[in-house]
């Protein structure tokens, strides 16, 4: 112990911070109470994000969380914006909590779980009867033998350790001790994978009219290392977008028939995508998420075919309607409005006074202002969510590890000791999780031992 005093002076100065961390920080980090507190604090802040609307405009918070009267006396829009409660899950303090959580998990695995597993694997025989007395589930029998117990335990899938005839150790469910370690590894893997994905991935959205070719340009979110992921030398053509409707008029499914084109415009991939069935190409995935009406193709008398763009009208949340204006005189002094609400082919035509003139199906024509207006087609556009996330393989691996770990963690690690001393057989056991089931099992084993030895005695006599 005398060397202890000289140790600090002998160690180089640069090891001090490490030593400080190990002595002062690590015990706090691996304290279970910190872990529980972290779990509950993360839960609490997550709740705040489900109660306060996320990602709205500043005006929204100003009108919903006024300063007078403040909600609960403190929750004003200023508080929300300073603390970041309008985007809880992306604030620095929430992300730091997650990082701290991951650090605590990792530290705990090394300082607690692995040593505990080592202890669990380092078992020993009980060689004295008094060792059985501390176990709650232990008994002293004047019948039965270690060998018959060994047989019973074998049938119950115990792993048996027995070197001599009079002493035995058996265990099962050691996976239950490994499970929690696997769980921690899985969670850390998921956290790392999501960080990697956030650094290197991107999300884009495109609204593409049926028949058009596009390159991914409208990137709404990208990580700092994402530039290499953007598709440079290929583009995508939406050959056709359509909606299948149920007989009642509800939407059955959205479809986009898509082709991937290389620099020369050659098709290199082709797929019909729909909800739950995306297109993947070179790490970029195209999801069917939205739709709209991009235009209408019409002919006036014997004119060439015009494709007029249609715009989404403001209906104050009363459903979606697209509209356009079609001139009926060459000088544009007169015209009609054309409205459509879906891709089932029905359009409504209103005159300048706002009076409904006619409803027309695609392919049919009508007379307005003395001209024949033929509606050839309503052109849909497909709403695509486009995403690359290089972190996915890591996250999915983490998912697999985590699922394996939680299932393993259900198993109870049961241990049974036995010792033959003179005419006495001592049997005892303990388990870490399933106390009730194990109690039942031990009682069954003891009963069987007794009945077996009873038959043996009967046969002998």
């Amino acid at each position: 112990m005398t060397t202890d005093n000289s140790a600090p002076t002998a160690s180089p100065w640069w090891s001090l911070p490490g030593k400080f961390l190990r002595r002062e920080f690590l015990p706090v980090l691996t304290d279970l109470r910190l872990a529980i507190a972290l779990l509950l604090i993360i839960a609490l802040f997550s709740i705040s994000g489900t109660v306060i609307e996320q990602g709205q405009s500043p005006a929204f918070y100003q009108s919903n969380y006024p300063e007078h009267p403040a909600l609960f006396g403190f929750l004003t829009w200023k508080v929300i914006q300073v603390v970041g409660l309008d985007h809880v899950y992306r604030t620095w303090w929430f992300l730091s909590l997650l990082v701290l959580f991951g650090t605590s998990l990792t530290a705990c695995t090394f300082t607690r779980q692995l040593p505990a597993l080592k202890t669990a694997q380092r078992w020993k025989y009980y060689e004295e009867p008094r060792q059985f007395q501390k176990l709650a589930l232990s008994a002293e029998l004047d019948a039965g033998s270690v060998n018959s117990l060994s047989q019973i335990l074998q049938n119950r899938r115990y792993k048996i350790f027995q070197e001599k005839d009079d002493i035995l150790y058996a265990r099962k469910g050691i996976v239950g001790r490994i499970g929690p370690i696997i769980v921690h590894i899985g969670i850390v893997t998921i956290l790392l994978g999501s960080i990697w994905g956030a650094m290197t991935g991107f999300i884009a959205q495109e609204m593409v009219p049926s028949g058009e070719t596009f390159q991914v340009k409208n990137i709404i979110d990208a990580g700092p290392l994402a530039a290499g992921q953007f598709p440079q030398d290929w583009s995508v053509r939406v050959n056709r977008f359509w909606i299948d409707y149920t007989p009642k008029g509800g939407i059955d499914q959205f479809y986009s028939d898509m082709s991937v084109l290389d620099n020369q415009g050659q098709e290199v991939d082709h797929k019909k995508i729909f909800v739950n069935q995306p297109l993947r190409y070179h790490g970029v995935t195209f999801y069917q998420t939205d739709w709209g009406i991009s235009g209408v193709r019409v002919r006036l008398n014997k004119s060439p075919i015009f494709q007029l763009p249609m715009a989404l009208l403001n209906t104050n949340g009363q459903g979606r309607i697209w509209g356009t204006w079609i001139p009926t005189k060459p000088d544009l002094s007169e015209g009609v409005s054309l409205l459509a609400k879906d891709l089932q082919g029905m359009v409504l035509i209103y005159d300048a006074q706002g009076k409904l003139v006619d409803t027309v199906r695609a392919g049919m024509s009508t007379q307005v202002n003395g001209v024949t207006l033929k509606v050839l087609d309503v052109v849909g556009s497909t709403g695509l969510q486009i995403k690359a996330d290089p972190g996915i393989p890591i996250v999915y691996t983490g998912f697999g590890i985590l699922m394996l770990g939680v299932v393993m963690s259900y198993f109870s690690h049961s241990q049974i000791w036995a010792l033959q001393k003179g005419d006495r057989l001592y049997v005892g056991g303990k388990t870490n999780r399933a106390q009730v089931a194990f109690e039942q099992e031990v009682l069954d084993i003891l009963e069987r031992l007794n009945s077996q030895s009873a038959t043996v005695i009967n046969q002998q006599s």
Partner: protein
Amino acid sequence: MNLVSLQNWLDNASFAVLFLTMLLYWIGAAFPGLPAINALGTAGMAIANLSIATLLGARWIEAGYFPLSNLYESLFFLSWGITTVHLIAENSSRSRLVGVFTTPVAMGIVAFATLTLPSDMQVSEPLVPALKSNWLMMHVSVMMLSYSALMVGSLLAIAFLVITRGNNIQLQGSSVGNGGYRTNGYRLMKAGELVSQPATPPVENNGFTRLESQNNGNSNTAVLNLATTPQTPTLTSTETLSPQRLSLAETLDNISYRIIGLGFPLLTIGIIAGAVWANEAWGSYWSWDPKETWALITWLVFAAYLHARITRGWQGRRPAILAASGFVVVWICYLGVNLLGKGLHSYGWFF
């Protein structure tokens, strides 16, 4: 056979059976001496379980997809899960108390589905595009099973809190395995021995005393009947070492722990299935949708419970309080979030 009329008959029948079963359990708890009432209660639960299963099966045949697409179906699936987990818990704990707490919940859910939900929400509708996936069955069924296991586990924790009120108690069973030791010290068992150690609690007990006997609550009904296990005189005689049995409180607590331990992996797998589905369907495995967030909150609360059990000095009623509060959290996750009226997990109606 007309499937629709069969369904109408079955949902009312399940409600009636569950209501009767609840009364049976309550009467059985109030008057422990009544014969046959225990078996009747279990039988009632089994009948309710089967009729709900038949109801869901009929809807599966009628609609052609796994019946978990709207609130009505999910409520019935939940009560089916609760009755199933109840039967498991009752069988392994041999405690009548389980039914006292689970039947009102199962009955309430079925009553709400049959009586309160408007009838146009009870009919099965074609699936919307987002739900047309094999993941529907994987994700939703596992989530619902985990909800039912966690609810029953929390109810058992509440039962545990009720019968241990006023006591300081040490829990058994956790992943580190701090249970399984005798509580009366290292008493030497031979009558001839002079030396016996004082019955102070050993170190493992952290100064808490174990609840010794079944002197609390309606012990006559709720005691586990394991004592009938044939034990030879050698085992029961005072001179020799014999197993020390778990008390009612310990049994309830351990069954609660095991049922939550079953619900927790299911919840984990269900959330992961949902994450993978979301990633396949619209390209993001986690988008902090309120339902997702609340599933995570539920997961965190029960993870905290599992960790509280292995924390020195916290073993006792504290983890059980966490588990009991988990009951509220599961309900918020299942229905409460939908009252916020946003996100991807709408059931239609005001939910």
